[in-house]
């Protein structure tokens, strides 16, 4: 039995009051249900505070074998260390003063170097968590260094299960190092299992070289994105009817190259499907995460021409949920004699029966400056819709449109596309039964 609050579509339970019928008999109570009042049910909360301790690496460890308080290094191989800023170097921090420096020290031959930095964190079963961090590959000397941020739990048998994994690998390409910090963020697609109350936040660094690789890590954060747990607990209500924050975009990392009908990328459609002036190809030397990214190209032409191409994906969504789009972009090359400012527009929109498009999220990026906009590494973007997906709309489009008028070759990378629902209750009540939605 539920009721609808005026001006509010979702049903709230009615207030139930119990009063004693007789002072002489404690066992007899009168139960009154007041359907005119909504009743507040305390929910079992997830943490509102930061879970990672010393995520900015500002505090050194009292243990001389460890570089930072609350963190420990494990599985070190071949003179690979994690340290504070080395002597004779200045700090290079994302926030605060210090950061964690993953360093391969010189060795006589090329060999495999690796080390992990980890911290155990207490979590609330049934909550959904988000990992964030910033990294900056300062120097690299050989092969492809990799840094993977992970959140995993360990079962009774010692098996590790990843909740979040953010793999970063960078080729020895000048565009990949000393480009400043790049921000990364990923939300677990599933909540922490109900029998798990501890996870490990770990960063695995690895490279095959003879020393000279330096990779900085800073601003590590793990926070609950769900406000209440989905696991039953005594004395409070579980979160049941919330929008699920799993990534709705398929192949948002552009790793699956088995697409067809005009695009390399599975699940994505290039618009127009063919064209020599502008197109989208896979790029493997400057990825944001994983191994590939999508490269939007405005091809060189004898005269300045308008060049435009888009990448689009249809995404099923839950009506009534608000959406959050995130991605990373890297403007790598400006075509000379540009007749217009190169633009990249990221949109999330839905289309009505009359084929009219309605934007839910709109992010416009323009590269106006001649020098200071080009080849500066990836920038992370995140935008949350102010309004929910309308009730009755089950599909939206995620689209990246590239546009330039130029003679020369213009190139813009996109990677790490995520579209997630904000884990609040949906404003549409289609899942409820026995409630008059028209009250």
């Amino acid at each position, binding site marked *: 039995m539920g009721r609808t609050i*005026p001006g509010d579509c979702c049903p709230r339970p009615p207030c139930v009051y119990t009063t004693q019928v007789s002072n002489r008999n404690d066992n007899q109570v009168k139960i009154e249900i007041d359907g005119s009042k909504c009743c507040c049910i305390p929910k079992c909360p997830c943490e509102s505070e930061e879970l990672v301790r010393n995520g900015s690496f500002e505090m050194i460890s009292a243990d001389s074998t460890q570089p930072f308080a609350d963190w420990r290094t494990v599985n070190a191989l071949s003179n690979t260390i994690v340290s504070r800023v080395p002597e004779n170097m200045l700090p290079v921090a994302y926030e605060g003063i210090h950061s964690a420096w993953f360093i391969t020290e010189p060795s006589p031959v090329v060999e495999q170097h690796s080390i992990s930095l980890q911290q155990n964190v207490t979590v609330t079963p049934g909550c959904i968590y988000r990992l964030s961090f910033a990294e900056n590959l300062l120097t690299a000397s050989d092969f492809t260094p990799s840094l993977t941020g992970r959140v995993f739990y360990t079962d009774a048998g010692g098996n590790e299960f990843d909740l979040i994994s953010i793999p970063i690998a960078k080729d020895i390409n000048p565009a990949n190092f000393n480009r*400043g910090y790049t921000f990364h963020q990923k939300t677990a697609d599933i909540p922490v299992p109900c029998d798990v109350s501890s996870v490990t936040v770990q960063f695995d660094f690895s490279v095959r070289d003879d020393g000279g690789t330096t990779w900085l890590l800073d601003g590590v954060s793990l926070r609950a994105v769900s406000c209440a747990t989905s696991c039953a607990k005594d004395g409070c209500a579980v979160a049941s009817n919330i929008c699920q924050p799993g990534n709705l975009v398929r192949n948002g990392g552009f790793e699956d190259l088995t697409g067809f009908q005009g695009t390399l990328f599975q699940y994505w459609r290039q618009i127009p499907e063919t064209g020599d002036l502008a197109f989208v190809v896979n790029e493997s030397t400057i990825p944001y995460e994983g191994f590939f990214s999508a490269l939007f190209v405005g091809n060189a032409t004898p005269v300045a021409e308008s060049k435009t191409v888009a990448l689009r994906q249809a995404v099923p969504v839950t009506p009534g949920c608000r959406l959050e789009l995130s991605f990373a972009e890297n403007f790598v090359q400006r075509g000379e004699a540009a007749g217009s400012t190169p633009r990249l527009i990221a949109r999330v929109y839905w289309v009505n029966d009359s084929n009219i498009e309605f934007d839910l999220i709109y992010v416009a990026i*323009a590269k106006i400056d001649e020098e200071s906009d080009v080849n500066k590494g990836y920038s992370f973007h995140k935008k949350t819709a102010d309004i929910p997906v309308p009730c009755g709309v089950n599909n939206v489009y995620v689209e990246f449109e590239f546009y330039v008028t130029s003679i020369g070759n213009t190139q813009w990378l996109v990677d790490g596309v995520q579209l997630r629902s904000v884990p609040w209750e949906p404003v549409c009540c289609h899942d409820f039964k026995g409630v008059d939605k028209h009250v």
Partner: protein
Amino acid sequence: MFDCQCQRCRCETGELIRNGNFEVRSSEPNHPFQFWEEVFPSFARVTSDPALTNIAYEGFAAARFNSQNTMEELDKSVALQQTVTATPGCLYRLSFAENLLIKGNGMAAAIPILTAKVIYIDNYGNAVDLIVVPILKFDQNRDPDRGYVYHEATADVPVPCSVSELIVRFEYFENSSIGSAWLLDSVSLRAVCPTSVCCQCDVCNKVC
């Protein structure tokens, strides 16, 4: 945390910051951009000159903190702030992007600092920090002109039940002779959870 959906118990679903992309300039004194106030300038200013602010993170413009060149090394500072209306009991997340374009210098090698803050004023007139994000740039070779970097910070505690106004402030400081230039863009403040912790059953019922 209560499962109230009454209007008074709800946190905002929309953006709280107005003109967070600095696309709209202002001609009002001490307001380089609409809704943003420049405060405490001392040998440094916030400029909205289109020719200096067209290196944008999103859109076409950004805010630019500029410190003046001086003969001597001096403390140089300025802040840019906006007051927003918030819901008591809600938890908020601040995000923004910054880009140290030029790093100044001096005998002691200037260390420009940009500190993002969300504060409220308590009953005694004291500023209380809800969010503080300090960004310091030490290295002339590895810090400036590296493009925009995104930052995000969530308060650990909600807005007190007696507070309904927050100040989002960016404080710029350095001690230098040759001044720095620092770009700021896409400032956002949003509620993290749907329900205010100040929501009480009786409040909720009265509203309903």
